[in-house]
């Protein structure tokens, strides 16, 4: 399907294809890592603008890592290790018809505790962990996206899981 594109991504159809393929992933990644404070949707736009300005120099296969690097750096410029604000949408609907009110309440409390604990993870741990758990990405994929080794990804995700477990069970 993909023709080897040595002219970069300057053709409208190619550029559009790249946008549709990567914009949402990039948005989710920035959101997982930095939360909502630094307008991840605007950073996605800025990264794609930079891509357009350098369209002849970026081949299609390299576009994804180019975009991720630029967007990450753009956010880092505005961000200074401040507290992350994450507000996930209402979680997917549950089948609660047979459950007691106490059970539902406990589930909601657990959910809230988990979200708070996730927001407290380091950006590195959180982004790797959520890409793996929510997006279902393999360790190898995440390593490619973030430009780090597979071993580093494994350490981050395992570290995140261990930290979350500690946070949640401590509060019981």
């Amino acid at each position, binding site marked *: 399907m993909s023709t080897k594109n040595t002219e970069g991504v300057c053709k409208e159809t190619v550029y559009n294809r790249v946008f549709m393929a990567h914009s949402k992933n990039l948005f989710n990644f920035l959101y997982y890592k930095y939360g909502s404070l630094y307008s991840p949707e605007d950073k996605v736009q800025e990264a794609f603008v930079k891509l357009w300005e350098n369209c002849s120099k970026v081949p299609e296969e390299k576009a994804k890592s180019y975009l991720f690097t630029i967007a990450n750096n753009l956010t880092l410029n505005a961000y200074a290790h*401040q507290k992350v604000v994450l507000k996930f*949408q209402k979680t997917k609907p549950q089948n609660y018809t047979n459950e007691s009110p106490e059970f539902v309440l406990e589930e909601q409390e*657990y959910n809230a505790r988990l979200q708070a604990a996730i927001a407290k993870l380091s950006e590195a741990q959180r982004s790797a962990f959520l890409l793996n758990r929510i997006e279902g990405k393999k360790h190898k994929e995440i390593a490619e996206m973030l430009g780090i080794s597979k071993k580093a990804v494994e350490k981050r*995700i*395992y570290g995140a899981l261990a930290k979350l477990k500690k946070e949640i069970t401590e509060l019981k």
Partner: protein
Amino acid sequence: MEREQLITKWLDNELSEAELQEFKRLEDYEDFVRIAETTKQLVPPAYKATQEYERLQTSLDTKKKSGIIYLKPFLKVAAILILFAGIYYATTLSQQTVEVTTAIAQKEVVTLPDNSIVTINAMSDLYYDPATWDEFRAVTLDGEAYFQVAKGATFSVETSNGVISVLGTQFNVRNRDDKFEVYCYEGSVQVDTGEHTVILKPGDRFRESVKIASTNTSTALSQPSWIVNETSFEKTPLGEVLKEFERHYNVTVSLDKEVENLLFTGTFTHLDMEIALKSISLPFNLSHKKQGNKVTLSRD
């Protein structure tokens, strides 16, 4: 298999049947599964790719119209000429970033490219870059200003003590020396210092001076008093009150050390120095003496 290795393989969905059984026998198995299941149901905010693409096209069209992208070869030649012109402009006109500075007793009203209005109090500095305004609204403030922000993309005010971000609202930021204070008049305002993040609602004030941060709520006012040429204080050390006084009157004030930390609640006018001095000194039974442009306050 070693525990960490087993868990890592489970996270990557790479366990064989036998390994899966081993995993299930782990003591914390149920905890891990619950964390995984619950996390899986969290959904990030919706990203509407088609709409975002249209928005992107609009900004690119703007750039294309100014010919930046299609004129690249031509620009290489023009760039050399522009470089010299640029040096001249940078040293004389400085058009890139807009900087507004107020002097003693001066107030200035600035309208930003999106029609947000900033009223800047005396002895303050405001910087912003009009070029990036469409994508990114950010100003840098040193001093005090009252913001009335038009609705739009996140608007942020960067000060040496923290970053304030809003979506369209009215608030006052006071960043002087070591004192940092934000008061929300309308809408909601988020304040981030290195150590705290708070969200203010109308009537809330966030104050941080030398490491003590507090948020308190009072009856909502509609705008800061300095806009109508008065400054009001609530339990503020006298030393600070007089520092503010010096910003509105061209004098230096000296004060006995023992009264520096007395707390003042009240107002002084920016329009009459005598009356202003009386408002500050009378509550504490202090007398004031003026010699040229030096004022001394002391206990009788």
